[in-house]
C-alpha cells in the first residue's frame, strides 16, 4: 500500500515514526528537512499523486486547533477542529481536499501530545463545553491502524469530560473504539450518500451496508453515533434515494439513541471548484449547472432549498427535529 515514506529529520527517531515505518518494511524511506518540500509544491498534481500516494511523517509546530467554519456544528457554541493528518485514503470526487491541496500524499503529524495540549488550553478558556471535530482534513478512522491516533485520543478525552470529540468517518476501522469503553463525550459520526452517488463518486469508500454494520456494532457497545449527510447532491430521484438510504440505515440503527444528524448541500469555495475542474474536466458533477452564491459554488438556490427540505422531511420520519442540524 505505501511504497515511499518521507520523514522529517526532526522526528526520524520519534517512537511513532519508528512504529509506523515498521508497518511498511518494504517502503523506500526518504528524509527531508521540512514536509513542505514534499507536500503542496506549486507544480504538484493531486490527480497524479492520488494514483500512488506516499506517506509523510512530520511534526506540526503551530495552529493545532482551529475554530470551525461558521455553520459547522451539532448544537454547541464552541466548535473547533484539529487535523493530526491531512488527506484521505478514499477518493470522493466531490471532496474539497482535491481543491485545497496540490498533493495527495498522506501527511501524518506524529506529535499528538501537542494537539492535546492545545485542546486543553482551548477548552479551559471557557466554562462551557467545547466540541472538537476530527475528520475535517482527513477521515478520522480510515488510517487508524497506521496512525494509532484513536487510542491516544480516547484516553485523553476520557479524562476531559467537558471536551467533546466528534470522530467523523466513512471507515469501518472501528477496532480501537470497540477496544475502549464507550464515552459520553464522544460521538462517532458516519457520513453517507445515497447508493447511486456512492457508486459514482465515492471511490474506495467501504460499502454502505458494511458501514451500517460498523455503526450497529458501536451502538451495541454503547457508543453515541452521529449521522452526516453532507454533501447532498441534487438528483431527479433525490427523494427516493434518501428515503431508501435512511430506511436502510434505520433498519439497523436505533434512531432514538442517535446523538445528532447533520446535512449540507454540495458546495465548494470557488477557487477549489476551479482547481477541481482542471483536475477532472470529464467529471459530470463539475459540469452540472452550478452557480456562485455566498462565496461558494453550489446548485441554484431553489434547487438547493428544495433538496435540503426533501432530506429534512425524510429524516423527520425517523428522528426528532431537535437533533437535526443543517450545515451551510
Amino acid at each position, binding site marked *: 500500500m505505501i*511504497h*515511499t515514506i*518521507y520523514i522529517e529529520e526532526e522526528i526520524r527517531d520519534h517512537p511513532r515514526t519508528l512504529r509506523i515505518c515498521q508497518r511498511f518494511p*518494504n*517502503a*523506500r524511506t*526518504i528524509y*527531508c528537512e521540512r514536509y513542505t*518540500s*514534499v507536500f503542496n*509544491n506549486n*507544480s*504538484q*498534481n493531486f*490527480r*497524479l*499523486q492520488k*494514483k*500512488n500516494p*506516499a506517506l509523510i511523517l512530520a511534526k506540526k509546530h503551530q495552529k493545532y486547533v482551529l475554530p470551525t467554519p461558521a455553520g459547522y456544528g451539532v448544537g454547541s457554541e464552541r466548535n473547533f477542529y484539529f487535523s493530526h493528518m491531512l488527506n484521505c485514503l478514499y477518493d470522493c470526487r466531490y471532496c474539497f481536499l482535491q481543491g485545497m491541496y496540490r498533493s495527495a500524499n498522506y501527511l501524518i503529524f506524529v506529535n499528538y501530545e501537542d494537539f492535546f495540549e492545545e485542546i486543553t488550553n482551548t477548552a479551559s478558556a471557557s466554562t462551557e463545553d467545547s466540541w472538537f471535530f476530527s475528520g475535517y482534513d482527513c477521515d478520522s478512522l480510515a488510517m487508524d491502524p497506521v496512525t494509532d491516533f484513536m487510542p491516544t485520543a480516547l484516553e485523553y478525552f476520557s479524562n476531559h469530560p467537558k471536551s467533546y470529540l466528534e470522530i467523523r468517518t466513512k471507515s469501518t476501522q472501528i477496532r480501537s473504539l470497540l477496544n475502549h469503553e464507550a464515552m459520553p463525550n464522544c460521538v462517532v459520526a458516519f457520513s453517507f450518500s445515497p447508493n*447511486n*452517488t456512492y457508486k*459514482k*463518486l465515492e471511490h474506495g469508500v467501504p460499502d454502505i451496508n458494511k458501514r451500517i454494520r460498523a455503526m450497529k456494532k458501536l451502538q451495541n457497545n454503547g457508543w453515541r453515533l452521529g449521522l452526516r449527510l453532507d454533501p447532498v*447532491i*441534487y*438528483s*431527479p*430521484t433525490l427523494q427516493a434515494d434518501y428515503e431508501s438510504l435512511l430506511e436502510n440505515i434505520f433498519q439497523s440503527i436505533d434512531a432514538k439513541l442517535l446523538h445528532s444528524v447533520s446535512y449540507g448541500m454540495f458546495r465548494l469555495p470557488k477557487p477549489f471548484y476551479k482547481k477541481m*475542474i482542471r483536475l*477532472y*474536466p*470529464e*467529471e*459530470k*458533477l*463539475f*459540469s*452540472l*449547472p452550478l452557480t456562485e452564491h455566498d462565496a461558494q459554488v453550489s446548485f441554484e438556490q431553489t434547487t438547493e432549498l428544495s433538496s435540503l427540505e426533501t432530506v429534512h422531511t425524510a429524516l423527520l420520519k425517523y428522528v426528532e427535529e431537535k437533533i437535526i442540524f443543517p450545515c451551510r
Partner: protein
Amino acid sequence: MINLIAATRAEADPVIAALKLKRISTNFDLYQHDHIQLIISGMGKCNVATACGWLANRTFNEEAAGATSVAWLNFGIAGHATHELGSAYIAHKITDLATGELWYPHQFSNNLPSSELTTVDTPLLDYLPDQLHDMEASSFIKATRIFSDAELVQCIKVVSDNRTNPLSAVNAKFANSLITNSVEMIIQQAEQLETLSNTIPQPETRLFNLLHSRWHFSASQTTQLRRLLQRYAALLDSAENIPEPLQQKTSSKDVLNWLKGQVDRADISL
C-alpha cells in the same frame, strides 16, 4: 508524449538506436519517433536548461499544439563514492550544490533502487557521502517543472565512477556501454512515465478548432467556448463535428447561447 534528455551523444546513442529515433532538427540534436522525442543537450546546467526550454516550446507550441501533458526523463551517467559501476538509480532527492535548492521527484513505485543526486558545476575532488553526482539534473528538473506536472519529471542515473574507478577513466565508449546495459530499464521507465502522462485528460480540440475557425470569438468568448465545450462533452457527448443546429448560427454569441442552452438543459443525474 515523452521527452528524453541526455547530455552527450555517447549516452544518447543506445536509446536512439533501441527506439529507432530519427534526427529531425539541426538547431539542437533532436531525435523523434511518433510520440517520443530525445534531445542531446550538451553538458552542464546552462546547456540542459536551454535545451529543455527549446524543446518545451517546440512540444507545446509547434509540433503538438494543444498538448497539455508531457513527461520528461533525464538519463545519463553519474558518480558515486561507493555504488557499483553500472548500477542504475532513480533520483528521489535532487540538490543543486551551488544554490542549495532541492527537489523531491515523486516516487511511483519502489521497483528501481533510488538515490539522492547532487548536481555540481565542476567535478569535485572527492565524492559527497551517499549520493550520486552529475552536472545537469537540478537544472533539468527546475526547467521542466515549469512546463509539466512535477510527477511527470524524473531522472535516472547509471554509476560511471566511484572511489576505486575514478572519473578520469570514464570516456565516451565506456559511457555508451553503461547506458547500453541499462537501455531496457530506461525505456521501461520512460514508458511508465508516458502512460502516467496519458492519464491526464486532454482538452477537446477538434470541435473547438472547427468552431473557432468558423466564427470570430473575442478572448473572453474563447474562454467561455472552451468551458462550454468541456461541459458539453461531460454532460452530453464528445462531438467530433459541428452539431447540426449550430450550422445555422450567424454569430459567435448565438453559438455560445446554443451551447449554454444545451448544457443547462442536460439531464443532471450523475
